[in-house]
């Protein structure tokens, strides 16, 4: 390369044209970040719009970290008044939370509920999204709208009568009830996210399987299932996160022994006559976040969350 070239590249270059063109190869790692810039464009880091965007990101992250760190600090602190840090550090809040609220059991319940909800909503939702994605049938629009409503209607609107119905059937305060109410928004959620995902899969693949002699069951288990795995995982994670975090509905039907973690925390925060000490709540809140984080980190190893809407090969990701 001539010196001229070096000069030129130090002056310009920009994003754009990062795409692999018609080739769907995964892009190799970029050694030189400027190498994918079109001539005449500024480096990504030199664009004013970049600075604005990054400043926003920085503010967001500062807020985020501040929130996280302050809760963690609080949860390990004792007698934190108007100083920068608590006067005393202790892990006793965790111990107290653990025994007082039987968190071991609560977490177990939370996991059981979350996993059951995920599994059931996938089992019920995916076949339905298949039918919606592939078939034209009478009243399809009505059915689609019906599936959309529970996601759009605020949980509190249908949660109260739903809880009453649960109690009427003698299901109050059972794990089953907690699972069922959480399915109400989860099944439609799976349907809504999986339908476009299935639509993007070439129907010829199913046809090919049928032409090879596969019955519908085999088409589903051996062909569609595996192909849908990324989409199902993405949907599953979001359902998992929503279920673990779902307070409004769970609270209405759960009771001691069937509370999920978030409800336990809420009870601790709002129990009448005041509330539990703040660090205790902080400790529980942090346990909750830690649990979610671990789940999410494990999950992100397997799925790309941007596959939520479109099944896109994120070629730009390394």
């Amino acid at each position: 390369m001539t010196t001229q070239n070096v000069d030129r590249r130090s002056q310009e270059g920009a994003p754009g044209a990062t795409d692999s063109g018609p080739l769907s190869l995964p892009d190799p790692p970029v050694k030189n970040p400027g190498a994918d810039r079109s001539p005449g464009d500024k480096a990504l880091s030199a664009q004013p719009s970049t600075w604005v965007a990054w400043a926003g990101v920085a503010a967001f992250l500062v807020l985020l970290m501040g929130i996280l760190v302050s809760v963690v600090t609080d949860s390990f602190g004792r007698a934190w008044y108007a100083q920068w840090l608590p006067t005393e550090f202790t892990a006793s809040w965790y111990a107290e939370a653990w025994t007082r609220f039987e968190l071991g059991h609560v977490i177990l319940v939370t996991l059981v509920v979350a996993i059951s909800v995920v599994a059931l909503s996938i089992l019920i939702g995916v076949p339905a999204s298949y039918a919606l994605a592939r078939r034209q049938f009478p009243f399809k629009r009505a059915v689609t709208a019906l599936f959309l409503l529970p996601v759009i209607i605020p949980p509190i609107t249908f949660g109260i009568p739903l809880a009453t119905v649960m109690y009427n059937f003698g299901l109050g305060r059972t794990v089953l009830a907690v699972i069922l109410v959480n399915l109400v928004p989860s099944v439609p959620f799976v349907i809504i996210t999986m339908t476009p995902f299935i639509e993007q899969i070439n129907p010829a693949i199913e046809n090919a399987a049928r032409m090879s002699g596969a019955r519908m069951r085999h088409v589903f288990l051996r062909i569609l299932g595996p192909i849908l795995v990324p989409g199902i995982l993405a949907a599953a994670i979001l359902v998992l996160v929503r279920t673990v975090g779902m307070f409004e509905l769970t609270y209405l039907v759960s009771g001691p022994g069937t509370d999920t973690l978030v409800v336990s925390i809420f009870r601790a925060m709002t129990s009448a006559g005041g509330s539990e000490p703040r660090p205790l709540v902080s400790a529980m809140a942090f346990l909750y976040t830690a649990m979610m984080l671990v789940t999410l980190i494990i999950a992100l190893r397997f799925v790309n969350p941007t596959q939520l809407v479109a099944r896109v090969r994120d070629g730009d990701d390394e």
Partner: protein
Amino acid sequence: MTTATARTKPPRGSASLRHRLADRGIDSQLLFLVPAIVFILALFVYPFAYGFGLTLQPSEETVDRWGGGILANYVRFFGDAFTFESVWLTARLAIPAALFNVLAAIPLAIKLKHRFRGKRLISTLLVLPITLGTVLTAQGLLIFAGRQGWLNQALLNLGIIDQPLELVHNYIGVLLSLIISGFPFAFLLISSYLSGIDPSLDRAARSLGAGWGQRFFRITLPLLAPGLATTFILTFVLAFSVFPSATLVGDPSGSTRVLAVVAYRFFGEQFDYPMASTVAIMMGLAELVVVAIVLLGRSFLYKGSTGGKG
């Protein structure tokens, strides 16, 4: 082959009944829908109808005070300024929050479409808040952004401000909480809509002489718009039913007395279930109005294929 009389307009074909049913979309694959439909009817439609029935059984006190017979709850909802004001209070929170989340996510999603070092880290950090949960967010905001929190202390010590910023227990607190919980969601959705747009369109526009602004406003934005509308609706729905954070970091007596809080008070403090149901249903309705307006607007947009690689 049957020769039953044809009632439909196009002449009935001569193929076997199975084919003719299949042609109308009726075949065994429809069974896939059955579990989901049964489920929705039992656990959503039935309770919902029950709740709606409740709204038509107003408490005596409500009928006495507001009149209107079986519609007394509705009369009260619209007649009681204190209650009705909540519609506005809720909208005032939810619409800006959803708008902000969508608008802020656009440039970031675009920036993060490019490749650069640390991209994965940043996207992960942006998505992180979905793990926080309302409680931790609220707790953290109170501690971190409170009058005496680290944020204010730092800013005071740095001399950037001379009065602590009022960031919690008010409108701003709830807005912040809604942004923290809603933004990652919007960011994820918009990112994936964006990657659905054929990158060669941008290149085509470049080759035709369009600068970045022109490309953004004339190509990317119009193609992204339907996705933005959907994202807006979804984050708006999340924000509209805000409840825990409105109580915890807001000013639930005043500026953040959102509909969910009002419904909950009728339910849990005044034990007026019919009225609680009414507020809840009106809340759903108000939300649907906004959703409908957005969807109507969306129907004017181009929403065909964006030529993505999907």
